[in-house]
C-alpha cells in the first residue's frame, strides 16, 4: 500500500483580530490508498476545520499556521487557486453536511453535472449525458432524476446527488463531512450504506468526519478520535471498540448501547428494570421550593382521543397531508411516555396540538377540565402554566438578545405571584435546580456565551418556571454532543421523579427512549403502529417499522464492512 495523504504536524488557528483560537494543534496522520478512515470528535474538536484544510478549502478566519498537507507528495498549501481548481479533478472531493442545500434550485440536476464536466473538460461532450446517468445510478438513483429540479427531490436524494457530483471528478480522496447528520434516521442509514458500497466498488480513499462514533465504527476500517484539536487515538476500528486506549474514547464508547438489549445502562443511569416496582408517585420527595407540590395529589392526566390533524395540500393538485391519524392515548400523572418515529411521522405535530400551538382537525385533547383543542389565544396561560415544552434546538429556543435572567424571569412573573426580589430568588433556584452553578454568574450570561448543553438546561429551567405538571420534550438531546446528552437526560429523569412531573418524550432515538421512559408509542405516518412498555416493545418489536427504526440506531458492535 502506498500513502495517499500525509498530514504532518498541522496547526490551524482561528484568527479574529487579536483573538487567536487553536482549532487544530499539531496533528499528524496519514491515509493509505483505498482506506476508509473515520474522524470522530464532538463539536468544537476541530474535525471539520481539519477536513476543510485537507481539501484546501480553509478560508479566513481559519489559517493553517504550521505543518503541511501532502497529497500524493504535493503540498496543498503551495498550489495556486487555479492549480487547486484543476487538482479537484482526480484529487480531493468533499461532501458536506449541508451538501443537499448546495444545489441551485432553479437548475436541473443535469445542469449541475454539465457545469462540472464543462469546467474540467475531462469527458467528451457527447458522453456527458451518459456519464451523468451512470453517476446517478452509482448512488442508487434512477436516471430520470437528471431532469428534475432540486426542490422536487427529498433531502436524502439531494445528498445522494451531491455525492454523485463529488464522484464525477474521479477523486482519489473523498472527504465526507457529516454526510448524513441532516437527514432523517431511516434515510441516514440508507445513505451510509451507499457510501460504504461506493467506497468498495470505486476504490477511492474515504475520510468520514462525524460526531457519531457509532456511525464511524460501523463503516470505517480505522478511526481517528479527535478531542480539543488533537488526535487522541488512531487505531483500527476493532481495537477502538475492544480495547480503547484513551479515556476520551472510552467515555464516548460508554454512551452507546443497544436499545434491544435485556439490560441497558448508560453512565449515570441504571437499567429501568432494576427500579421496577417502585411507584412513581413516591418519587416526589423534596419539595422544590416553598410554592408547593400540595396539588400534586390532584394532578390531572392528558387524555387524547381520536386526534387527527390534516394539513392543506402543499401544492395545488396534490393530496392533503394527514399528519396525525386518529391517535388516542392517555398521559397519566407522573408517567413518562415516549413518542417515537422517523421525521414526518407526526410526532412533533402531536406536541404542537397538545400545547395548543396548532388546532386539531378532529378529535379531542383534554387536560383536566380544559379542552385544549378549542382554547382561544387569551386562555393559553391556563394551559401553559401546567403544560410546558422543552425544544429540540437549544440554539433557536433562546432569544439571542436576552440574558438568562430575563428569559427565566418572564415565566416566573407571568405564572406566579412573585415579583422583584422574590422572582429573582426563584430564578436563581431554577438555575440551581438544573445544575447551572454558580447561579449568579449564569443568570447574567447571554445565550451565545453558553454551550449547547448549558443552553438546553436554561430551556429546561424555563419550562419548570411555571411549576408545570406535564413537560413535553421534543427531541431534547438530538442537537447535543453525545457526552452532554446523558447529563440532560439525567436532569429530565430527576425532575420527573422528584417533582412528579409527567413527561411526553418525543424522539427518533430509541436508546434514549429506552433510558428515560416507561411506555412507548411508535408512530408511522400519523398512525400508532405499536405501543406498550418501552423495554418490552424494544426487545420484541412486532411491527416492521419499529424493527427498521431499531436497525437504524448506530451500533459500534455491528460492523457493516465485510
Amino acid at each position: 500500500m502506498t500513502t495517499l495523504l500525509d498530514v504532518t504536524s498541522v496547526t490551524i488557528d482561528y484568527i479574529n483580530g487579536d483573538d487567536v483560537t487553536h482549532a487544530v494543534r499539531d496533528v499528524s496522520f496519514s491515509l493509505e490508498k483505498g482506506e476508509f478512515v473515520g474522524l470522530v470528535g464532538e463539536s468544537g474538536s476541530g474535525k471539520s476545520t481539519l477536513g476543510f484544510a485537507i481539501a484546501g478549502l480553509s478560508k479566513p478566519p481559519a489559517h493553517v499556521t504550521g505543518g503541511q498537507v501532502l497529497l500524493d507528495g504535493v503540498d496543498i498549501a503551495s498550489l495556486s487557486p487555479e492549480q487547486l481548481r484543476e487538482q479537484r479533478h482526480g484529487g480531493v472531493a468533499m461532501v458536506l453536511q449541508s451538501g443537499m442545500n448546495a444545489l441551485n434550485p432553479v437548475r436541473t440536476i443535469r445542469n449541475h453535472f454539465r457545469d462540472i464536466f464543462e469546467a474540467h473538460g475531462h469527458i467528451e461532450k457527447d458522453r456527458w449525458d451518459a456519464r451523468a446517468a451512470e453517476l446517478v445510478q452509482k448512488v442508487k438513483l434512477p436516471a430520470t432524476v437528471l431532469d428534475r429540479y432540486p426542490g422536487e427531490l427529498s433531502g436524502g436524494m439531494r445528498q445522494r446527488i451531491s455525492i454523485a457530483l463529488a464522484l464525477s471528478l474521479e477523486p482519489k480522496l473523498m472527504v465526507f463531512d457529516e454526510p448524513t447528520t441532516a437527514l432523517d434516521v431511516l434515510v441516514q442509514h440508507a445513505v451510509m450504506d451507499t457510501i460504504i458500497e461506493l467506497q468498495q466498488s470505486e476504490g477511492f480513499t474515504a475520510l468520514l468526519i462525524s460526531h457519531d462514533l457509532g456511525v464511524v465504527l460501523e463503516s470505517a476500517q480505522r478511526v481517528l478520535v479527535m478531542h480539543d484539536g488533537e488526535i487522541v487515538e488512531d487505531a483500527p476500528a476493532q481495537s477502538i471498540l475492544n480495547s480503547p486506549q484513551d479515556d476520551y474514547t472510552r467515555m464516548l464508547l460508554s454512551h452507546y448501547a443497544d436499545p434491544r438489549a435485556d439490560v441497558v445502562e448508560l453512565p449515570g443511569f441504571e437499567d429501568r428494570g432494576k427500579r421496577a416496582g417502585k411507584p412513581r408517585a413516591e418519587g416526589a420527595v423534596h419539595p422544590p421550593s416553598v410554592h408547593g407540590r400540595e396539588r400534586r395529589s390532584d394532578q390531572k392526566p392528558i387524555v387524547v382521543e381520536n386526534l387527527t390533524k390534516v394539513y392543506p395540500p402543499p401544492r395545488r393538485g396534490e393530496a392533503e397531508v394527514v399528519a396525525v391519524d386518529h391517535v388516542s392515548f392517555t398521559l397519566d400523572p407522573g408517567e413518562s411516555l415516549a413518542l417515537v418515529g422517523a421525521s414526518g411521522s407526526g410526532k412533533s405535530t402531536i406536541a404542537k396540538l397538545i400545547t395548543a400551538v396548532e388546532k386539531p382537525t378532529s378529535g379531542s385533547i383534554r387536560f383536566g377540565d380544559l379542552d385544549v383543542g378549542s382554547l382561544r389565544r387569551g386562555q393559553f396561560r391556563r394551559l401553559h402554566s401546567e403544560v410546558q415544552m422543552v425544544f429540540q434546538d437549544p440554539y433557536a429556543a433562546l432569544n439571542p438578545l436576552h440574558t438568562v435572567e430575563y428569559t427565566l424571569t418572564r415565566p416566573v412573573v407571568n405564572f406566579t405571584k412573585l415579583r422583584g426580589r422574590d422572582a429573582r430568588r426563584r430564578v436563581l433556584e431554577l438555575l440551581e435546580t438544573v445544575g447551572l452553578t454558580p447561579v449568579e454568574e449564569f443568570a447574567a450570561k447571554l445565550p451565545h456565551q453558553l454551550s449547547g448543553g448549558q443552553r438546553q438546561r436554561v430551556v429546561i429551567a424555563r419550562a419548570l418556571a411555571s411549576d408545570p405538571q406535564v413537560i413535553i420534550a421534543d427531541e431534547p438531546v438530538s442537537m447535543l454532543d453525545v457526552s452532554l446528552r446523558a447529563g440532560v437526560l439525567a436532569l429530565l429523569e430527576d425532575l420527573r421523579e422528584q417533582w412528579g412531573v409527567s413527561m411526553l418524550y418525543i424522539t427518533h432515538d430509541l436508546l434514549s427512549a429506552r433510558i428515560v421512559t416507561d411506555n412507548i408509542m411508535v408512530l408511522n405516518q400519523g398512525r400508532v403502529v405499536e405501543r406498550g412498555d418501552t423495554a418490552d416493545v424494544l426487545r420484541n418489536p412486532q411491527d416492521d417499522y419499529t424493527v427498521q427504526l431499531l436497525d437504524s440506531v448506530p451500533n459500534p458492535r455491528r460492523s457493516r464492512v465485510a
Partner: protein
Amino acid sequence: MTTTRQPMRDATQDIRTVQPTGAPPNPWQVFARTAGTIWSNGKARLGLIILAFFVLLAIFAPLIAPYGATENGFDRSADASPEHWLGTTAAGEDVLSQLIWGAQISIFVGLVAGALSTLVAVLVGLSWGYTRGFIADVINFIVNLFLVIPGLPLMIVIAAYLSGGGIGMIIVVVVITGWAWGARVLRSQTQSLRSRDFVTAAVFSGERPFRIVFREILPNMTSLIVGSFFGAATAAILAEAGLEFLGLGDSSIVSWGTMLFWAQNSNALLTGQWALLFAPGLCIALLATSLTLINFGVDGISNPRLREGKQR
C-alpha cells in the same frame, strides 16, 4: 434516588439575593459596538463623514454663514465674488448663506419625517406580521392601497389640501406617503421571526402578544429598522425638496427646495447663474447619498449569533 446527580440541594431554599456579578449589557456598549460595526465599513464611513459635515453645518449655521438667510440688501443676481462666493439671488440674498441655513431645514425634515414614518412602519409592520386572519387582511388592504397609489401625485394632492402649513405640513405629507414600504419589509421579517422557537417559547412563558412583538421580535430586527429609517430619511429629504421646488411648501422659508423654486422662478439658468440651481441640487444629492452609504454599513449589524460566527 436512582441517578447519580442530586439536583435539589438543601441550600436551594436559602439562596439570598445578591447583586448580579456581571451587569447585563449596557445599552451604551451595545450602541458603541453598533457604531463601530458601521464605522468599519468604508462606504458607511464616507457616508457618516458627509452626514456629519452637513449636521455640523446646520448646527453652526449662525456662526458659519457670512450673512443672514433672508438678508436681501445686496446686488441682485450678482455673479460669484469675494463677498458672495456663490453670487446672490434675484432678490438680492447671499446664496452661500442660504445654502448653509437651508441645511437646517433639510436635515430637520429628513430626521423627523424619517423617524416618524419608521415609527409608523414599525407599529404597523410588526403587528401586521404577528397577527393572522381577518385583521391582517384589513391591514394588507390598507398598505396595498398606499403602495399602489403613485407617491408624488398623492403627495401633491395632500399638500394642496393642507396648503400653507409650512414644514409641519411637509412632514405630515412625507409620513403619510412614506410608511407603507417599510411596513411591508418589516412585516415579512416579523413573519419569519415569529416562526422561530424562541417566539413560541415566549408564548409558553405566558407572554402577551404585545410584549412578544416588541420585546422578543423587535430587538432582533434592529438593523432592518435602522436601515429602513435611513431609507425613509433619504426619501423624506428628496420629497421635501421636491414639494418645495414645486411651490407646495411655504416659499418664504429658506431651504434647499425653496432655493431651487426661486432659482427656477427667476430663470437662473438663462441668466447664467448656474450655481443657484447647482449648489442646492448637489447638497440634496450629497445628503441623500450619505444616508444611502450609511445603509451599507447598517447591513453589517446583525444578531450576536452572526457576530460570534467569526470566532468559531
